[in-house]
């Protein structure tokens, strides 16, 4: 299909391009930016007047809930949510049921996502079978099936020997290992340790749960040379350790979730179950450190940590409520809000949800690595067109995700969000258009 996006302001964070230009698309690729000749006869035209034309967003953490948790989310509902959020590529963790530890499951997931053609799907395989932390998975076969890395999702590997061998084995073949740093013993609480949890009588997760796990992982990276991506940092002390490890040249990258970037434990308010999240929301100083670290590059990417949760599992007392919130449709707006709060230009802001996450994925993306998360002539036409001036109030019933619970529900935060997606193109085809 030939598509023309005209009258927009084209921003490509990777190249620094920021100019008023038309974009022509054909055969799934970007034909030209700014030099669209009269011979180009589009079948469809997207009027991007007043809008930003940016690379489609790349989200490094989104749960789709299939297989096994279809009551909480279906591939179709969640990939529709992704498209509505301008997300054109996403990485999903392996904590499905069954877990993604068999090549057949990964192939099926990729196949079904491809048929929907709403968003590119990049699964993480389980690092250990059943995420049990005991036996390694067949990483080579899983990679052939389409896995871009290996992860334990929320389940800590308690046996350090197993973790070391997993990193050794993965690094033999250059596979990346994605770990959320949380000590399996200290991480059992329902809120961040601190004055709020103590006052409310909620069991706490101390910062040491993150820093102890980070220190272990960092030393194992040093010993094995494994490429590790650290998922969803939550604390100032954790950020400091990542900064130090990066300065030493260790092959480490890291991300932060929209939740930890914008909220603190004070937002739990009167036991609002929407604020039950993992990692738990920490204190103001932690949030400031995370925001600063995302700006200075210590943290490479911003992720939605999209986790649709069934209503029944959220209308429970805080400690019993299932952790997580829907996020795919909020990622762009919360990136823009952070960028505006931090005084950043649109290019560097958008980099954290486009080109930087692609850099984290690296070679695992194969031929896509050179153009996903970017707008380049000849590259794939994954595009997000959004209106930066439009603000909106998050109303759960208007979301496309099957998960309706978000901590950014206007009712609970009173936070109006900037930026609204007008159109999303995946491989040159419309995946979403706002009415």
């Amino acid at each position, binding site marked *: 299909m030939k598509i023309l996006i005209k009258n927009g302001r084209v921003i490509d964070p990777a190249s620094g391009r920021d100019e008023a230009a038309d974009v022509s698309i054909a055969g799934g690729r970007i034909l030209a930016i700014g030099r669209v000749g009269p011979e180009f006869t589009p079948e469809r035209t997207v009027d991007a007047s007043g809008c930003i034309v940016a690379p489609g967003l790349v989200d490094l953490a989104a749960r789709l809930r299939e297989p096994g948790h279809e009551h909480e989310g279906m591939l179709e509902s969640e990939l529709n949510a992704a498209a509505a959020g301008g997300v054109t590529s996403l990485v999903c963790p392996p904590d499905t049921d069954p877990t993604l530890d068999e090549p057949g499951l990964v192939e099926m997931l990729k196949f079904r996502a491809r048929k929907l053609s709403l968003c590119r799907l990049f699964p993480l395989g389980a690092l250990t079978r059943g995420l049990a932390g005991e036996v390694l998975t067949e990483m080579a076969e899983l990679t052939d099936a389409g896995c871009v890395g290996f992860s334990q999702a929320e389940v800590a590997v308690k046996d350090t020997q197993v973790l070391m061998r997993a990193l050794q084995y993965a690094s033999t073949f250059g596979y990346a290992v994605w770990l959320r740093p949380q000590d399996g013993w200290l991480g059992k609480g329902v809120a961040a340790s601190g004055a709020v949890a*103590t006052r409310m009588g909620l069991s706490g997760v101390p910062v040491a749960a993150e820093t102890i796990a980070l220190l272990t992982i960092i030393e194992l990276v040093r010993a094995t040379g494994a490429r590790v991506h650290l998922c969803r940092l939550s604390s100032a002390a954790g950020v400091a350790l990542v900064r130090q490890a990066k300065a030493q040249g260790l092959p480490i990258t890291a991300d932060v979730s929209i939740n930890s970037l914008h909220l603190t434990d004070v937002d739990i308010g009167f036991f609002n179950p929407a604020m039950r999240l993992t990692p738990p929301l920490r204190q103001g100083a932690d949030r400031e450190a995370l925001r600063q670290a995302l700006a200075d590059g210590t943290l490479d990417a911003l992720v939605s940590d999209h986790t649709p949760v069934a209503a*029944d599992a959220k209308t429970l*007392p805080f400690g019993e409520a299932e952790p997580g919130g829907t996020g795919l449709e909020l990622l762009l707006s919360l990136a823009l809000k952070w960028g505006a709060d931090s005084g950043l230009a649109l290019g560097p802001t958008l980099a954290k949800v486009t080109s930087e996450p692609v850099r984290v994925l690296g070679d695992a993306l194969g031929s896509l690595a050179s153009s996903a998360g970017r707008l380049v002539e000849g590259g794939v036409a994954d595009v997000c067109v959004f209106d930066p001036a439009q603000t909106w109030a998050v109303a759960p019933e208007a979301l496309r995700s099957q998960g309706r619970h978000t901590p950014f529900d206007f009712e609970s935060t009173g*936070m109006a969000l900037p930026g609204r997606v007008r159109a999303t193109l995946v491989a040159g085809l419309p995946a979403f258009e706002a009415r």
Partner: protein
Amino acid sequence: MLQRRNPQLNRHGELIHLLSIEGLPRDVLAHILDTAGTFLSVNDRDVKKVPLLRGKSVFNLFFENSTRTRTTFEIAAKRLSADVLNLDIARSSTAKGESLLDTIANLSAMHADMFVVRHAESGAPYLIAQHVAPHVHVVNAGDGRHAHPTQGLLDMYTIRHYKRDFTQLSVAIVGDIVHSRVARSDIHALTTLGVPDIRAVGPKTLVPGDLRQMGVRVCHDLDEGIRDADVIIMLRLQNERMSGAMLPSAGEFSMKYGLRPEKLGLAKPDAIVMHPGPINRGVEIDSSVADGAHSVILPQVTFGIAVRMAVMSIIAGNEA
């Protein structure tokens, strides 16, 4: 960020539910204590009843076992002439898989006017209060580690009865504070009523430093904690604390933090000793102290009925 209105107060700042003492203004607390004073005499009458809740149904909803608190709520409701139903949920519908809110919806359909709720999860009564019909009132009878506001209020009533003025007092709370909803409610009440010196006493596993932000002095030494105290509140030591590596043994806890007669000598000569019950004799408190001249443990129970009558009558009279 919007700070949502405190769910236990209506637009006029009147109490419609009692969920926590935190955030309640001093005059609301004083009004409850004053009202309790007027009910105390009802307990001494031949006919121990007033008609304030006649025709109203109070459901005692205990998701966690309790005999004492449930009984005092039952007595309080009956003395207000309410119809009382005791539901021991721990052994009924939730055991069959019914959700908390389904249970509430079903009982609301039976035209409950008030729920008295005890639940093992901190914050559970907030969830209930947010989902009941506007005319239904919720009283928190203890939620997880979070709050036990009627116990906090009866403790305040007791202190006021014996000490009159809160603004000159030193109050020591001793024992397992981190797991104690009673301690949290007491601390909020004491700070609201202007007590200048509140000490939280116990080992670091049971008395975290974060408590300082609630306005208390953290003491890990019993002698320091109770020296010159006017009021000593001893907390019950739950047996399960020994399994979570919180303490080595009840015996060692008793050795370090148990209130024995010679320790009591460090407090003011007219100090009172309180305990929310049930007491572990020989663990957190020596029998001679529990039964001694300084102990006001049994008057606490008596005052508890009047305080619960006051709470129920006040919230029943306010509209959402």
